[in-house]
């Protein structure tokens, strides 16, 4: 059979719900009374979590991807949604992060009916829809639309408080993300010109190592790297993520940058002929390594917690790009490789730990009125739950067991050693040391009792502390999954069936 033929699989309509639920949520936000906005958004996110879990269960129980053809039309004429193993896992991950974020953000943006809460909740649901579309999208142009939706929903979150600084940061983000979009669109145009189709499955079945495809993937990857803030294209990330309100920073750092990364992953693992991947993937790995080292070194220098955490994101995103050389280098089935699972674990562990970290940073700011690390003494006494959250998230970020960060590091080291690639081992080890250093800078003063009792500016709300703590606990719990490649993540990869 042609790999291009898709059919709606049993239970496939749940994929439509993944897109429709957040969209309906947005519409309802504008219909209900201002007071109910938060609750509608929270309900939509909970429904979205239910949908994501249903998709994950269907995929894992049938060990096959779930697909839905909109209107029953075959691609390339019609539109297809398809969730394979990794898409289902990431959908569930994103949905799980979003619920505690929403619980945390409730009431954080002033009185109902103002501009800020409306913008925040609308954009949060738009991000949800965009991410689901990215994870299930099957068509390069569809993915482009989802990517743009993601960017345009993320930028307003950066400048939510409307200050000069954050407007500047948002503008920077916007311009750079648009440059990335242009490159991505250029690649789409090249592929359409050469192949006449943008459907990923169709493309994978007719692809060959021809110049147009390679050029297109190269250009698109650069664009996606800009949106993912791969070093040295990260200039927009620290000011944007450090300037946004904490709930927004959590979503931006944990999820939004992963959207563009996911598309890059699909291009390289599904579309690119493996024999052509070696040099390019090494290049991506080198940039990732530079991100790990320089991002961590910059995090070590920061005087403010939010900037430190933002630079830590630059570094942690660097690890993700090591998946390209490690997963594509061996030549053997990349989806069953250790590196593939390592990358997915790193992405998830970072999502949970970083969301928790940004939310905790926000709570710290509220509790003591600033986030200057040098003046953290006594924090443990004022906000013990928040310090516990930071500790658990830090354990995952620096890769201590048991945590998702540890499992990812372990599997990534296994992949690197398995290929005899000692230089990546050095990068991973050095990154771990530097991470230990910046985590040390935060936690030691926080644990140190104050010389004189320090003033609490505002009491911390336990509900919000608990939301952040829940995310950190999940980052730790991921560490109890087996230290081996997950079969679930290999389900339904296109290239596995393609020539």
């Amino acid at each position, binding site marked *: 059979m042609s790999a291009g033929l898709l059919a709606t699989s049993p239970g496939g309509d749940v994929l439509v719900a993944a897109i429709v639920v957040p969209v309906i949520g947005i519409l309802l936000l504008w219909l209900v009374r201002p007071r109910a906005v938060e609750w509608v958004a929270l309900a939509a996110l909970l429904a979205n979590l239910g949908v994501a879990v249903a998709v994950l269960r269907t995929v894992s129980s049938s060990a096959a991807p779930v697909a839905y053809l909109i209107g029953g039309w075959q691609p390339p004429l019609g539109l297809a949604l398809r969730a394979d193993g990794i898409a289902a896992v990431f959908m569930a991950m994103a949905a799980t992060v979003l619920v505690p974020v929403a619980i945390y953000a409730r009431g954080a943006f002033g009185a109902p009916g103002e501009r800020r809460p409306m913008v925040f909740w609308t954009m949060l649901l738009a991000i949800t829809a965009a991410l689901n579309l990215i994870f299930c999208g099957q068509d390069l142009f569809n993915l482009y639309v989802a990517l743009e939706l993601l960017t345009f929903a993320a930028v307003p979150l950066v400048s939510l408080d409307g200050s000069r600084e954050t407007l500047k940061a948002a503008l920077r983000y916007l311009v750079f993300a648009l440059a990335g979009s242009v490159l991505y669109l250029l690649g789409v145009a090249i592929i359409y010109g050469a192949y006449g189709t943008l459907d990923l499955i169709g493309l994978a079945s007719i692809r060959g190592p021809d110049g147009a495809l390679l050029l297109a993937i190269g250009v698109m990857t650069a*664009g996606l790297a800009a949106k993912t803030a791969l070093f040295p294209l990260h200039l927009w990330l620290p000011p944007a993520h450090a300037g946004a309100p904490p709930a927004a920073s959590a979503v931006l750092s944990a999820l939004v940058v992963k959207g563009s990364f996911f598309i890059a992953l699909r291009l390289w693992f599904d579309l690119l002929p493996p024999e052509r991947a070696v040099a390019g993937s090494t290049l991506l790995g080198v940039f990732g390594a530079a991100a790990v080292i320089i991002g961590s070194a910059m995090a070590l220098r920061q005087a403010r917690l939010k900037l430190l955490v933002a630079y830590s994101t630059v570094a942690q995103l660097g690890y993700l790009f090591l998946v390209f050389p490690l997963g594509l280098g061996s030549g053997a089935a990349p989806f069953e490789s250790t590196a593939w699972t390592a990358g997915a674990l790193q992405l998830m562990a970072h999502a949970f730990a970083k969301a928790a970290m940004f939310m905790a940073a926000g709570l710290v700011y509220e509790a003591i009125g600033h986030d200057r690390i040098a003046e953290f003494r006594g924090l443990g006494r004022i906000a013990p739950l928040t310090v516990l959250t930071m500790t658990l998230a830090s354990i995952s970020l620096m890769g201590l067991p048991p945590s998702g960060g540890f499992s990812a590091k372990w599997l990534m080291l296994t992949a690197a050693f398995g290929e005899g690639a000692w230089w990546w081992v050095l990068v991973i080890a050095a990154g771990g040391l530097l991470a230990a250093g910046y985590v040390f800078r935060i936690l030691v003063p926080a644990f140190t009792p104050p010389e004189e009792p320090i003033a609490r500016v505002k009491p911390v709300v336990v509900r919000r502390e608990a939301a952040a703590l829940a995310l950190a606990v999940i980052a730790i719990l991921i560490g109890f999954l087996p230290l081996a490649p997950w079969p679930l993540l290999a389900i339904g990869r296109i290239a596995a069936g393609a020539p």
Partner: protein
Amino acid sequence: MPDAALSPFAPLLLALASLFPLALLALTLAAPGFRPRLATLLWLAPLPGLMAAVFAQGAIVSLPTPLALGLMLDRPGALLLGSAALIWCAAGIAAPAWWGEKLRSLPYQAWWLATLAGSMTVFIAADVVTFYLAFSLVSLAGYGLVTRDGTVAALKAGRVYFALAVTGEAFLLSGFVLLALGAGGETRIAAIVAALPSAPRMAPALVLVLLGLAAKLGLVPLHLWMPPSYGAAPYPAAAVLSGAAVKAGVIGLVRFLPYATPTETLGIALAAAGFFSAFFGVAIGLTQRHPKHVLAYSSISQMGVIAAVAGLSLAAGRAAGPTEIAFYGLHHVFAKGGLFLALAALSMTGNRGRAALLWPAAIVALGIAGLPLTGGALAKLAIKDALGSGWAKTLGSLSAVASTVLMLHFLTLATVMRSRDASAVAPVALRAAWWGTALASLALPWLLFPSVGGSLAATVAPQALYELGWPILAGGALFALLRLWRNRPSLPPGDILAIIRTGEPWLARLSNGVAAIEGFLTDWTVAGAVLLLLALALAGAML
């Protein structure tokens, strides 16, 4: 033997050894009202570990399959677990006497219990992940004990401690991953070590693991942290760090080296590194002016001896190696931990009752050098076979001579330690903790020596007395000569650390350099150009 009559409660006991301190940690975190009482009950926390060491040898705890965590206890593990539990217990009795009210606060109790939990678990970890977890816990939580006084010097020492701890862990983790890979993804230590001889990258894996352990053991040049840390740590903390926490490195030598297969090159290299540390520690220790620093250098020296014995056993393929190392380690737990407690008692004592503290200290200190009939003599006899009869035996005897000199140096400094208040008497808890530990260091090796295959009759044979005795006499003579040398050099604790510290401005320059690069790259025009170049480079790389 315990294996035959293993009680059904043995696995529970094993689990409690690591969970009980964690439960108390949770309690002190959650229930502030309990802290004043817990301060006087800290000595209870290691008791499940002690009971496990006595009653649960041979027990295994494994969690259901997706969780790859497990515990097990064998004889070398039991020797170290039991002795570590005892020194934690003794220090737990001494701690309220030393710290008083302070011990009622959360940081004191939390760091103490977290370090204790790691210290107990590392001896019973059955798989590399649990081992790494426990090893990290005892190392990183130890930071809190080192810096407990909060002085500038303590924080400075703490930074060095932390830096070397995480460096060692990075080595250890890389080594563990490589070991697991060589065993086909297996994480159980027994399976990994069984697969080692046929594993493709055994040598690099073991070198990485050994580097990680060396940082914990304080083998030169990874010893930098030890003298400043023990110097900065309050006495009860120094006692558990030097007595118990360091043994995480010893259990690593026991667990991960394939003693069943002779591994010549690696074994000899380890032995050479160990002997170097053994003599280096003494040489630098003699330049120290504070008894705490002298004890730290003595630890460096003694851990060097243990590493040398491990290396020689590995080179010769001696299956008895792990037990002998653990037995030697057991004596060191009591001797070194005890001497720190003795210093604590001396520093709180004025003119009265000093002899009752100093004489046991003299016997225990010289026991480290192998004074005949002490527990230390049995420890030296236990490693006699490993040292053999050639150059290694000579080096072993010479290291005993060197240790004698260092311990005499320590004793002369210890006699000067006293309270400013001439009528002060150390609290009875503190003195009892010291005397109990001293007794353990003298008596327990006698009780346990037969069970590790030693013959008590041979220990009192004239031959053994001569072999153990002459290094003490020679050391005594050498020390008398050394005292004639009036202005001996005095080095800062951490020796080459002072040289490394001169590189700190360089580190700051490096950091500024990174910031300058970052500043350049985050310029709009540069970033735009980089974006285009990346697009071209990626396309070019694939074409």
